[in-house]
């Protein structure tokens, strides 16, 4: 008998082991739901699976009586748009500032303390400020995401740039490169896969800020919907929405990972944990 740490499950068995907990959760839910519904058919806390299908069918495939929109898809598009713009803008800012900070000591001395200070401000605490300054429209939601994740991304990028071995920077200089050329050919291409990795890490926070902003001031969006139907205890809407958000988060993460693997094979081959 091998030691436990040396025993590897075979591939199909690994799949099975991974799926079992989900099944158990599902069965527990159905059991609990049935028990509550048997006692009170109007119970709203743990609706039957059929109620989820019904609610989603209504939101996703029937136009809303009030606005004529397909609410579920409208919410999804609005939220993804905010998330995409917020994260995209943050990544771009982080790339520029992180790379310049990391490569040019004078800029780093000038900006690094400020960025560290900003990164310590709790973004939710300045949400009211954003609403006051940027109004209740799209901008303040995007700015919240940006303020929430950009300082982290910049600091991470700066760190990654500083981790590039100095031998490489010296070598580039002996090959005749100036500062700009070192940035575009040596530093930038090497931090791109690392930027994708940090964006993936910051997505959780980005979703948090998105849903928070939507919950407080919005007229559509996944977070808005959840907080809206909370008033009616509509678990039949909330739970599928949460599931959907989780699925979207997973899909975005998965897509970024595949993108990075495809664009930067050299990065993933040399850093096993980079996958």
């Amino acid at each position, binding site marked *: 008998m091998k030691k436990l740490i040396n025993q590897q499950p075979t591939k199909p068995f690994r799949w099975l082991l991974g799926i079992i907990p989900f099944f158990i959760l599902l069965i527990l839910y159905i059991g609990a739901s049935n028990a509550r519904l048997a006692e009170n058919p109007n119970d709203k806390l743990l609706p039957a699976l059929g109620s989820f299908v019904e609610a989603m069918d209504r939101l996703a495939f029937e136009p809303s009586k009030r606005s004529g929109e397909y609410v579920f898809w409208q919410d999804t598009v609005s939220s993804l748009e905010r998330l995409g713009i917020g994260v995209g803008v943050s990544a771009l800012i982080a790339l520029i500032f992180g790379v310049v900070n990391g490569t040019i000591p004078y800029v780093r001395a000038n900006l690094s303390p400020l960025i560290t200070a900003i990164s310590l401000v709790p973004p939710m605490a300045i949400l009211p400020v954003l609403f006051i300054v940027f109004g209740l429209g799209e901008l303040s939601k995007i700015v919240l995401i940006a303020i929430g994740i950009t300082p982290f991304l910049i600091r991470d990028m700066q760190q990654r740039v500083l981790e590039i*071995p100095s031998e490489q920077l010296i070598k580039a*200089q002996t*090959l*005749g*490169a100036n500062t*700009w050329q070192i940035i575009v050919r040596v530093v930038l291409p*090497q931090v791109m896969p690392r930027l994708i990795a940090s964006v993936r890490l910051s997505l959780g926070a980005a979703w948090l800020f998105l849903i928070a902003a939507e919950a407080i001031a919005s007229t559509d969006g996944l977070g808005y919907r959840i907080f809206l139907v909370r008033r009616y205890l509509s678990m039949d809407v909330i739970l599928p929405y949460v599931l959907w958000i989780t699925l979207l988060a997973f899909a975005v993460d998965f897509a970024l990972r595949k993108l990075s693997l495809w664009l930067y094979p*050299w990065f993933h081959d040399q850093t096993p944990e980079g996958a």
Partner: protein
Amino acid sequence: MSYINIKNVWKEYGDQVVLERINNTVEKGDFITIVGASGCGKTTFLKMLLGTEGPSRGIITVANEPLHAEPDAQRGIVFQRYSVFPHMTVLQNVVLAREFEKSRFLSRLFGSAKKQAVEEALTMIEAVGLTPAINKYPHELSGGMQQRLAIAQALIKKPRILLLDEPFGALDPGIRADMHQLVLDLWRRYKLTIFMITHDLKEAFYLGTRLWVFDKDRIDPQAPGAFGARITYDMPVGSVDEKASAKIRESLQQEDADLDEPAMSGVTP
């Protein structure tokens, strides 16, 4: 006037003297191997030649001009590790120098300029024997092949001076012998002036034209940092007889045993 003049060069960090009174001249085409105990300042000396460190006192001139105080295309370098770009293939690594030179803004070449640069790079890659691997990334290459790439990358710039900082320190003995042959060939073919730091005395006695030994000739046990290292032996390679070699060996071992040596210069062991 000699090609490289080193005039009374000192290097001090605070009151730690790393190198003192270095005086020497180097002719074009000299191949100098440098040995010395850990922490004796040979890497510091190489850094001064490279331009990442300046001398505290004294001056180094190349062709009658003071050495530039930052790394530039005048001097090529091959480090023990990390001197190729991991995100570029072998070919891209070698073409890079031409792209830096001819495209100051984009640093990329297109069309016929690119073709010409690629051809030149292929010749250089051929010279170091990496032709079968032109489309591989450095992490797919063995240590010896990576060092070949680093050499090709440096040589395409046709540097007047090539600096090698323990380039073969991480390689297996068998591969090392191949690399020696390669470096000797390239040195003759491109008429380079080479400075090479090594830890391998056999390598030092065999490669190149001159052997320099860095060592402290004065030691104050109360203040180990009070005196710096100097070039204690400077002899033509080939003339190192048994007696001299035993003496050099002895002086190096003595230093190695003396581990209270401050590693101020960040010298690799």
